């Protein structure tokens, strides 16, 4: 399946802004994040198609995964 990954703010450093990657069906957010070698403590916000998602969520074809470092949060 094809997944679009968008990185923002400091997560872009040394990586990319936007990328389209191919993954096997049922790949989770965790697997993608770990595969990109992004330390989990650097991520504060995970959005799949604009909605809050967890590391366990499985992605589907044409999903957009968006990752943010800590930017807000009372």
């Amino acid at each position, binding site marked *: 399946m094809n997944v679009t990954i968008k990185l923002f*703010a400091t997560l872009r450093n040394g990586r990319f802004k936007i990328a389209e990657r191919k993954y096997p069906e049922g790949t989770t957010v965790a697997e993608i994040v770990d595969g990109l070698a992004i330390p989990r403590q650097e991520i504060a916000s995970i959005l799949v198609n*604009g909605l809050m998602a967890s590391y366990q969520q499985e992605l589907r074809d044409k999903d957009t995964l968006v990752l943010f470092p800590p930017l807000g949060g009372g």
Partner: protein
Amino acid sequence: MDFKRTNYSSGAPLEEKVGYSRVVKVGPYVFVGGTTAVQPDGSVYGENDAYAQTKYILEKMIKCLEQAGAKREEVVRVKAYATDMSRAKEIGDAYAEFFKDIKPLFTMVGIAALNRPTQVVEIEIDAIIGSIKEVKKMTKVIRINPAQNQVVSEEFKDEYRLLGGRALTARIVADEVDPRCSALGVGNKVILAPGLLSGTKAPSSGRLSIGGKSPLTGTIKESNVGGTAGHKLARLGYKAIIIEGDTSDKTFVITISKKGILLLEAPELAEQGNYQTTQILRTKYGEKATIISIGPAGERGYTAASIAVTDMDGNPSRHAARGGLGAVLGSKGIKAIVIIDEASVLTTSDDFNQAAKKLAEALTKNPVSGQALPALGTAVLVNMVNESGALPTRNFRYGRFDNAAAISGEQLAETAAQRGGKCGHACMPGCVIRCSNVYVNAEGRHITSGLEYETIVMLGSNCGIADLDFIAEMDRFCDDFGLDTIETGCTIGVAMEAGIIPFGSTDGMLDLTRQIAEGTALGKILGQGAAVAGKVLGVERVPVVKGQGIPAYDPRAIKGNGVTYATSPMGADHTCGNALGHPAVNPISPEGQVQVSAELQTVCAAIDATGLCLFICFALGENPGQNLGYVADMISSLYDVCWQGNNVIGLGQQTLAIERRFNRDAGFTSAHDRLPEFFYKEPLKPHNTVFDVPEEEIKKAFP
């Protein structure tokens, strides 16, 4: 009294042979014996140089004092013996470098000779441990009545001692302003109050609160601003400045110096923009002067009028913007307040300094206040809010803007790097977060400073604009004319909704801002904010609560903010309880939002009382026990109380209670704690959500 005696020796053989000490301490009294500029190797430092020898000697002697447990600040008498009184000035100059602010007794006499011919001065010092001179604090309250030409200084009421910032403005407004008064009339007042910790070396503590009754909302209002005024007013000893009395058509300037406060007429400043005004005043009073000013908007009584404060570059880029307090100042004829002098930082104890240091460390270590904000500014939120589907787009029609990337923080930082602008710019002295920026155009010329997230979105995506350079020009216009950028963005969005100009039209926006500046009929209407403009132009979808324009988070997709907008005593306001990114809730779910908003509103009201920048909230969220504890420690030390974190929170609760009571007396009920209808009915794309936090839940938490 303790009469325990201690003799301190420096180990010199003569001391044993003849029988004398270097330092003698009896109880709290510390006496340091006659000292010359002899070095450990026996040679004379700075031979025949009176200034150099005096400095060397005093440094040596202060070390001796410290050895005996005394401090430089505790010195009560200095005696200098000089072989040549024509060198008195040099000796005096060196002395002043150590003791000018402490003012012990200082005797200087001429004598025939010292031990060695190249020694020109010998000094004795007496100190008393525990005699530190009275700590400088904020004690003065000044009342200024421009129409009556009165400036009166008073000691603050005892009940105000532990209040500062928003807690103090709220209290004074509640005590002295009739909630039913006309906000642009004789009954209203403008209160300027530094925070409890302002003026000290606490990190990011220079915020100034400005309060009164808002002519925009009719509620109580506090607007908080960075820049250079907060620290200066605190260090000059001002707890609050109250501007009151009849309305006036004149143009006054208030000057504040170490000598006192003057009220002067300045007709030449009438209708000048903030940039011109600050330039004129800084030319007159010095480049270092801090200027608090209103632009023509405030002078004309536009209820979207802000109050500008100069930043460290002297630009009027920081604003107490929300709620139209600029118009209240204007109604009383106050065009500007000039703080001419600076005083030294307020004295703080070791305990205080320790807590301040730890808080600063926590702020720099926190990923938001220590990395994201200094790197990209508040604009870093553009992409996040856009991806979340909550970015106000075309008058709150959509939650996503196609060209968000073009107006994002990442883009802003890139542009600044290419053109020689700045990110990581501090808006106030002593800030360790430094989230502000300086925006220059393609030729490197300064356009505006402090281009913030709210401005970028409300004058950007909310108006269908994707041009950061243009938004920067709009920001400069608002800063110069003295308008709240959020309110102006909402208002133009409403004008676009009404079809006055198309969405996305930069020419159209230039025309509307020209009209506002000129004061055409339409311009006058737009200057009164989105609610008035919407009514006159017949627009149904007007994004305001209690008359104030909604900031850059659509409440249908960040529901916690919807609760804040609906229930805050300030009207639609984000700084009093921003739920963006809060880990305990899903932003598009109605669950848990009321509790989150209630907690945030309390914490924010507490921070607003301290003079600390709201962005310490990230460190507070990370480790509340520890970091709020540092704030409590600093307040405890400075005000001689025993506060814990919950006392600080208590300040927030107190303040909110006072504010809600004022609003009730002004005629507000829970019926006003609502968003405009379209937020409940019109689903917001991309998530197709409406604001559906249950009204009963809101009423219960905000009775």
